[in-house]
């Protein structure tokens, strides 16, 4: 009679977990490759000369890297205009958005007026009316305003400063309401008793305590304003009025010969600000997104 030596259960469980871990990593690598290929390819292409591109040696690697494309763009009046327009628009919209959102969030989370509860929950329902529905009537409205008041609305980049808040304010307000609502009411009361006015309660207590929310909302507003494509395409037609997304794509379509090196460089540089913000403030970025998932 031989005694059966059973494998220790702990060992097989550990082995099972190890396999699960290995498979997880395998798939993560696969997906990382899939997700990162296009931007990396943008980078590779941006370092190629036109000659190397058309030579079609190996698309995935650059053999004779050059910074020529970068130099051209940095000295291109047109491209710099795009960049400047984007920057001005994005920063202005961020400022406007934060002011409107913070005021509204403070009011909706702390004070009451007729309809405030409905407004607080329903504010993000505005996203149910997408920009692709609104751009045509807005076009006509802006033309109308221009005829009526003489203010130049058509084909000017500042029109974007007017419309972009519709894309950013609802969600930013929603984020701020979530953060403000989680501040205990006693804190306001303590501040009021300490002698603060409502404005001081907002600026010296709420904003510092809800700072992660403020940062997340700011990042969101900036990213959306930087990246929007439809409104610029609809409302700006002259090259000097365009922001980056519209500008890069339009100059591409204009030309007959695509200078892919330059196009990729332009696109990569255009994607840089959001990417940099993401790289440095990733946790706030993600916190802003998942505010819905965790705070319900």
């Amino acid at each position, binding site marked *: 009679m031989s005694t059966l030596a059973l494998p220790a259960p702990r060992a097989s469980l550990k082995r099972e977990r190890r396999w699960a871990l290995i498979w997880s990593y395998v798939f993560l690598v696969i997906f990382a490759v899939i997700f990162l290929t296009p931007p990396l*390819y943008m980078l590779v292409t941006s370092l190629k000369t036109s000659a190397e591109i058309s030579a079609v040696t190996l698309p995935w690697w650059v053999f004779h890297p050059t910074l020529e494309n970068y130099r051209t763009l940095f000295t291109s009046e047109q491209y710099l205009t795009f960049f400047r327009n984007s920057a001005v628009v994005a920063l202005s919209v961020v400022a406007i958005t934060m002011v409107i959102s913070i005021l*509204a969030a403070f009011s909706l989370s702390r004070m009451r*007026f007729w309809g*405030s509860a409905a407004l607080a929950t329903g504010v993000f329902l*505005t996203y149910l009316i*997408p920009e692709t529905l609104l751009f045509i009537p807005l076009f006509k409205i802006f033309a109308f305003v221009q005829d009526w008041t003489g203010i130049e609305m058509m084909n000017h980049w500042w029109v974007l400063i007017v419309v972009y808040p519709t894309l950013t304010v609802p969600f930013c307000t929603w984020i701020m309401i979530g953060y403000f609502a989680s501040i205990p009411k006693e804190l306001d009361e303590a501040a009021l008793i300490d002698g603060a006015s409502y404005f001081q309660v907002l600026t010296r207590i709420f904003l510092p305590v809800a700072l992660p929310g403020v940062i997340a909302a700011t990042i969101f507003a900036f990213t959306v304003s930087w990246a929007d494509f439809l409104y610029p395409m609809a409302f700006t037609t002259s090259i000097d009025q365009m922001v980056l997304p519209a500008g890069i794509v339009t100059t591409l379509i204009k030309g007959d010969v695509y200078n892919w090196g330059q196009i990729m460089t332009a696109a990569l540089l255009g*994607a840089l600000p959001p990417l940099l913000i993401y790289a440095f403030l990733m946790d706030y970025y993600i916190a802003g997104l998942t505010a819905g998932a965790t705070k319900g």
Partner: protein
Amino acid sequence: MANGIATEAAARLPVARRRAARRRFARHKSLIAFLMALPLIALIAALVVYPAFYSLWLAMLNKGMEHFVALGNFTCLFRRDVFGRVVKQSVIFAVSAVIFKALIGFVVAHFVHNIPAKGQRKWRGMLLVPWVIPPAMSTLAWFWLFDPSYSAFNWVLSRIGLHAVPWLGDPLWARFSVILVNVWYGAPFFLIMYLAALKSVPEQLYEAAAIDGASGWQKIWYVTLPMMRNIIAITVLFSLIVTFANFDIVRILTNGGPIDQTHVFATWAFQLGIEGGDLPLGACVSLFMFPILGIAAYFILRDINRRGTEA
């Protein structure tokens, strides 16, 4: 010194005078609250609600916007066969893209959740990149990757002995490519949301299920999915709306082509309305999105309310 012993007689004194004063004070505070929320309300009213209604009116004018043609634009559209194609394409595009985005997001979220916590941040960071890059820019990269002459993908295919694929030239492949890019762009968002939701599922539920004899798959079906039901519903519904109304990707990759096979509502409306100069017709096209958006809105509202009462 008052030694206020309770007397039932001191029950209700006339309070009319003081009530008026209190109401004044309360109304004052309400007014300030309203004023603070006014910019928000004004913004949405003027630039979202009003244009939405205006588009209804606009869609019923003729091209020159001189006279009223009621449903003339609508019937005109029905007669065009492009219209049928646009409806079909928009629906197929939205539904299939969202299904894949949700699936991929869900699956990859599990993988990220499985690895030790320290490494999760790194991987999460890498995997969210497609969503961070402005879609216009990343779509340009895809456009380049799909280029008929220089496609890097075709280069790989030819190296392993397969034919080059007309990514954007052939109608079927074009539709595939458009969906592919949208899934690439949107899946990371689902990944992040589902990862956060996964983390909020209490570990004890899995332990209880394991003791009850559940396998890995059963755990997902009986524990994970029900706990994540709300977040899945919300993300899917919102994504349906956003994908349905998508403009950037189709416009840059195919501009609706080849032969209008990949047009969605947004791009077709743009082509007719802005490029073609027929604003009413464009508005008309955009409006067709509305019924579908309305249905999605109904489901979202219902779900939000249910969530509210559950909490």
